[in-house]
């Protein structure tokens, strides 16, 4: 099955800032892909490159088999796109903007749009400028999805929305994926991503640090806590890919990926470890482990933690 989105060695620099650094990614159809990253990590730059608004300095990117540099217009016609600050003609009513936008899509747009308005509880005769922020966001989402696009790209869609609206928004994403459509969702709201995403990619300082199916990621990542008999004692790292380590008195804590089942054999009775336990990491733990600049990382971890391009 061909990928909906591909990025190969894409880099982009703005002045002294490396917004994207050699990013590789392929996203298959029918999933909700969440792009996680702190502010300024490069998420919006990647989306702007994918939608043809920005040209990469190097590398290639395609969306729905269109080259993003040459086919930006075609891409934006085919996909649904909601930016972080969607532009709307706020002097129109919800009805009017739907009627107006239907001119650019197929016959089914109008009915689907009105169904979405009904589903979102949007009063159709109200001017957009008189609507709440959540209502505007729903109108924007309805407009972006009413033509049933193969790919929906959402850039921070729920920032500033109340929990009820966020929930509605996210459920609609899951519904779309269930219909075989692809959703690329950029966010730093980890809890909402955790609820809907099939795959996650974590961006940090322009680099795609990690790309995995969410379930697999969570299963393969553990938090290991070791309590030692002496606060000054040293201890070996657990086996696997150690993302971070932290020390609090006699207690050491690691976040480890791909740890073997027999990891406890590393620590014998003479190792000074009084207590040893492992628990599943949350997505937030993993995100912080990857992105926290203040976290202590074992030597050479930076070089070894970089994932290979994920091919499906």
């Amino acid at each position: 099955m061909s990928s909906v989105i591909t990025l190969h060695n894409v880099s982009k620099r703005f002045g002294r800032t490396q917004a994207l650094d050699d990013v590789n990614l392929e996203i298959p159809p029918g999933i909700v892909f969440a792009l996680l990253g702190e502010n300024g990590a490069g998420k919006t730059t990647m989306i702007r490159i994918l939608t043809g608004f920005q040209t990469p300095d190097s590398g290639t990117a395609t969306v729905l088999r269109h080259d993003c540099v040459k086919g930006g217009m075609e891409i934006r016609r085919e996909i649904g796109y909601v930016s972080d600050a969607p532009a709307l003609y706020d002097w129109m009513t919800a009805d009017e903007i739907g009627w107006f936008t239907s001119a650019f899509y197929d016959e089914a747009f109008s009915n689907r749009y009105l169904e979405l308005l009904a589903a979102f509880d949007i009063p159709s005769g109200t001017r957009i400028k008189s609507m709440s922020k959540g209502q505007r966001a729903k109108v924007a989402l309805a407009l972006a999805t009413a033509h049933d696009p193969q790919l929906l790209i959402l850039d921070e869609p729920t920032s500033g929305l109340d929990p009820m609206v966020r929930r509605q928004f996210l459920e609609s994403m899951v519904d779309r994926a269930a219909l075989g459509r692809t959703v690329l969702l950029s966010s730093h709201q980890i809890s909402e991503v955790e609820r809907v995403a099939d795959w996650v990619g974590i961006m940090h300082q322009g680099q795609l640090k990690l790309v995995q199916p969410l379930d697999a990621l969570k299963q393969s990542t553990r938090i290991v806590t070791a309590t030692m008999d002496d606060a000054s004692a040293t201890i070996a790292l657990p086996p696997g890919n150690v993302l971070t380590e932290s020390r609090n008195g006699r207690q050491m804590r690691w976040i480890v990926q791909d740890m073997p089942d027999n990891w406890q054999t590393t620590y014998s009775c003479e190792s000074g470890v009084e207590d040893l336990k492992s628990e599943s990491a949350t997505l937030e733990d993993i995100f912080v482990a990857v992105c926290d600049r203040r976290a202590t990382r074992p030597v050479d971890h930076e070089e070894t933690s970089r994932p290979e391009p994920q091919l499906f």
Partner: protein
Amino acid sequence: MSNPISVFRSLCWKDAKAVMPLVIMAGAGIVVFNLLVFVGSLVAGSPLRADGYIMIWVLMPNLVALGAPALLVGGEEESGTLAWLRTLPVRWQNIVDAKFAVSAVAVIATWLAASLAIALLVASGVVRLRGDYLELTMVLGISKLLFFSGLLLAVSFACAYTFRSPITALLALVPSITIIYLFAMNLGEYLLSYQFRRDILGRLESYSEPASTAMWIFVTGLAISLLVALWVTQRWLGKRRLTRPAGAMSLPASISQSIQEPYRPPMIASRERPSPIRALHWQQLRQARWPLAGLTTMGVIALLMIRWEEATNSINALTPLAGLALLVAAVGLGALVFYGDNLNHRRAFFGDRGISPNQVWWTRILSPLAAMLVLTMLAVVLLYDERGSRYLWVFLPIAFACGQVVSMWASRPVLGLFGAPVFGMLCAVPLSLFFDAYQDYAWTAILLVPVLLFATWWICRRWLEGKVDTGFHVRMIAISIAAVLLPMVCVLGHRIATTPALNNNWRAKAMAATAGIGNSKSTTVYSFRHTSGYGFQWGQESGVFDLEQNYDSLADLQKKIRDDMDDLYSSSITNDDIAMIFDPNKAGWEMSPAEHAELRYMTVELVLQRIQHVREAAIQYEADLDDLQARAEIPELSVVALLSNQPELFGDDESVAELVDMISPVELRRESRIAALLSEWRRYQPDYRRAMKVPTGFFAPRTFAGILLSDSRMLGVEGRRSDRYLDEFVRVAWNQLDNGLPMSGTAEFKHRTELWKQAHAPYYGYWWRASTLQGWTKNHEMDLQELRKRHTQVTTAD
């Protein structure tokens, strides 16, 4: 509690930052315009007329007075910062006063900069102020201008606080300022008038006596009071805007949209799905309809006013306002094109959906363009027959095109509204300097329009995608420069393309024919310059003096005439004397009809002798073409006309026949013309000028028959073109002298006249073009032939 002074200072700093782009724009305009004027004056080699230039001086400060309130109130409303200000613990007085203070300082600073620029140019002689324009720089004129700026600033703030949309505020401003200014001016003039003193104050003083100092002080006080009243009004409106809940000044609740409208479950779409073009056109019309209607109405009213003023010849205080309103309407229509989509970056709606930029562009431009075309057609219909405003229509599409460029270019839509006139003037100044030289091509300025329309079409995709980056600005600047250059390139291209080829064979023949010119006494013949010349006719009004004032007696005059006949280089009898002799009101002394006829006979005899003498000198290359024309051809035309139409002025038929007999014979006339024409041509040639050390250089003009044709300041193409056309003109004229002169008004005659016209380089000869080679027509030859035939028959019959 924060310190009120530091709060006010902070607000002023914020407002100064907001208004700075407008002030910088106005400052750049002042610098660029004045530089262009300076360069233009240098190229023209003379001071420029101030008519258009004075408008730049007045326009820039008033543009700031107009734009600063829109930026500080309308702009802040659009960006949402006005609402934010209301949430801060700041008194409304501080906000309103800071905005007014910053704007007032900006206007004053712009006035100072603009005045300094004009003072420098006037002092250096680059610009010469005349008439009404000079009065504007006097104390009274400056006071009036400052008063107008103050009114404009206060009324602009009042409108900006009253209306949330900057465009609506601008539309409301035009009638408001017109009414207030006219009221103030008329009231002031009436209070200072004689009628007021007579009818109201009951003073019976002289009409010409000026108003008293007390009255001037009173009127000045009244003007200041009006400004204060308007300042208080705008302050009050500012308070309403900043302290009342939003919507309090909007439409009545019954027709405004309710925020709390209950949820209505949507039904199946009842409206038919529109085509993209229809939908986009609907959207543009909806967002621009009221300003569109307002600006179109304003333009139509302005046109009707101009038509009425032209028709009734009643130029008054409204005249400049009507013209200004018309241009504002055209610029405003242009500025509307992308305004609605630029607000809050709404254009991203199209960009995000990959909607065709082509469709977006066409639907943006269509309705404002249609409105502008209506205005243009109306201008053609109403004003084409009015000499003063005949070509006003050309400016409307140009103003529109400039407006639409800036409406796309400006990052802040409100700034775009006021940047459009500056951009328009930046385009207009180099073009007006250029077309001052190429007046016949002025219509080609309209070529600017398609280029500027192309600019926005070309850049539309980047604009929709929000790529307003360096590349965007570079493209815009490049195409704007191209737009200004295109008419110039076309004009120069046409001049190059229509330059005749060098006719070497003919030139060699002409050079051979004038080989003897090098033996003549001087390079330029001035022998006859002090003698009288030019035409005269019976009954023509002559100078202010009478003959008695110039001569002691009739005998004295007659003696001087005889002396002149004896020495034909003498100039005792001037052209004025001859004119007075043929002016029944200036003839002087008591003379019998016979004495009068004899005096006229003697005068014409002197004139004919001089003509003959000049013609003979021309054959010897000692009289040039200018001498021949002024002192032989034109006087001969006068003599032939007098002898043909009023022979009774000269006594009996015998006297007339004697005079006719004295007219130069055909062969002498033909040869003198050929010699003068060819020798003039030879003297005009650069190699001859160099050989004879005729002054050359940057400011040395080249004259032919006393008329400036070109000089070395002109582009090479113009000098070459002038030379080639002169060759053609001389060739054709020579050919006509050999093969028969053309009748006046025939194709041959028109061809010769057109060649002469084309021989003039830009800047030169607009008043002289049609008046060369007077008398070199078959008509004159036939009149002469007829005269000779008639008087030979008379003599034979006797």
